């Protein structure tokens, strides 16, 4: 049990307390792009978690032999290869979803989250802890994506996973879809809302202000 505790915290910390999206503001681009529906958010989450875990494992295995001068290139090459392989597998076995994700699978390569974890953790730790950490971060990212994806799909279409949940007004129900939810800005508002909510509860995540506004003396009479 004592041996499991660090693993457990490594795995669960990134969910809320050290969430890569809400605390470190990593992986935002894809979080905005693929959350128009729950299905695409889920696929992206699974793809990213798999890529992240495998990349962390592989890089951790060869960590002692990566020359510092080319370490970023080596990491990117490994991540990009994994992404291409996963993309090919998606196109072969989940062609529907791969069409919906289209360009965004390729964006996993440049997702700052992947490089962030390999740079910060996998380079200094053994393969198993690295993979646990990567998996935990993947889950943290997935959690944010799924929450935002669910909200956007519910209010944008009145559906969840393509199943009509709220009866639409033009089919005799009461719900008028919110088209704004399907456009990119809504993801931005929602993400901001999620960050604010998390930091309201976990006050230690609040960053000190970068600038202090100049004090404004009372105007002289």
């Amino acid at each position, binding site marked *: 049990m004592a041996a499991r505790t660090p693993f457990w915290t490594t795995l669960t910390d990134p969910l809320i307390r050290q969430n890569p999206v809400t605390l470190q503001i990593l992986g935002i681009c894809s979080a905005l792009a693929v959350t128009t529906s729950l299905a695409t958010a889920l696929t992206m989450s699974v793809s990213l978690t798999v890529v992240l875990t495998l990349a962390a494992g592989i890089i951790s295995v060869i960590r002692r*032999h990566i020359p*510092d001068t*080319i370490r970023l290139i080596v990491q990117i090459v490994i991540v990009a*290869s994994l992404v291409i392989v996963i993309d090919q597998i998606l196109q*072969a076995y989940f062609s529907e979803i791969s069409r919906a994700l289209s360009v965004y699978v390729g964006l996993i390569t440049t997702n700052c989250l992947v490089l962030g974890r390999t740079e910060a953790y996998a380079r200094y730790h053994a393969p198993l802890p690295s993979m646990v950490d990567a998996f935990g971060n993947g889950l943290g990212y997935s959690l944010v994506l799924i929450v935002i994806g669910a909200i956007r799909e519910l209010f944008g279409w009145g559906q969840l996973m393509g199943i009509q949940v709220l009866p639409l007004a033009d089919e005799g129900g009461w719900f008028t879809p919110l*088209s704004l939810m399907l456009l990119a800005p809504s993801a931005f508002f929602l993400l901001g809302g999620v960050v604010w909510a998390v930091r309201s509860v976990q006050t230690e995540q609040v960053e000190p202000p970068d600038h202090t506004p100049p004090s404004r003396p009372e105007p002289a009479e």
Partner: protein
Amino acid sequence: MAGIDWNPWRRFLALPNESRTKTIIMAFLVSAVCAVLVSGATVILRPIQTANRAAEEQARISDLVRGIPDMSALLETSGGTLSTVVIDLDMGRAAADVTRETLEATLADPTNWTVLDAGADLAGLGQRPNYAQIFLLRDNDGISLVLLPVTGQGYGGRIDAILAIHGDMNTIAGIAVTQHSETPGLGGRIEDRSWQESFPGTTIRDDSGAVRFNVARSAATTDYEVDGITGATRTGNGVTQMMRFWLGPDGYGPLIDAIQRREF
């Protein structure tokens, strides 16, 4: 490590990470392993992907045919299959030397495309292939349905669709949008069945033979119009121009004339 280790692999690993030899060999090794992985995945999975794409195209076509009233019954009587043929657009008849299998390779050659001048280029395509694969449904008295792939420019990019026309070659039977990048919720509604349902029964040309098809600003008022989409005027215009180009003399016009003359 008493003496010199003769195992070259271990000697390589024992090199300091900063040595030039190790840097180059590591870079090469990582690239080689990754290249093998990527090529392997691509080669092994390509047949499945090709089959997927073909199946998807087929599914869209059969969906389109099924959605046309009375078409299922027609399919039953005619043996339930569509015949397909590659046509020469300029001639308006079946292409002599291009088959379904060679079509892709033929269109990869730029000489098999016609550059459109500004006046003729209604759909904003720039150039048009000389050959196209179309689908036909024949019954006892000639052709009863034609499926024509069309493409045009919408607001967000290219729109690809398949247009179904009845045997009189002047009444639209249906449309299926196969690919588009219009704004979700606005122009993106061209893929909704509710909008596509206003196509069947629309007349293409008037008595003088001019293509009159039009996407209306709001609800359709004439036989030549289909309903417009609120907030997506440019998408509607794109669809109008696409249809006018492909049904006109530079598109499938010669083929449509040939079928009407019963020469196809």
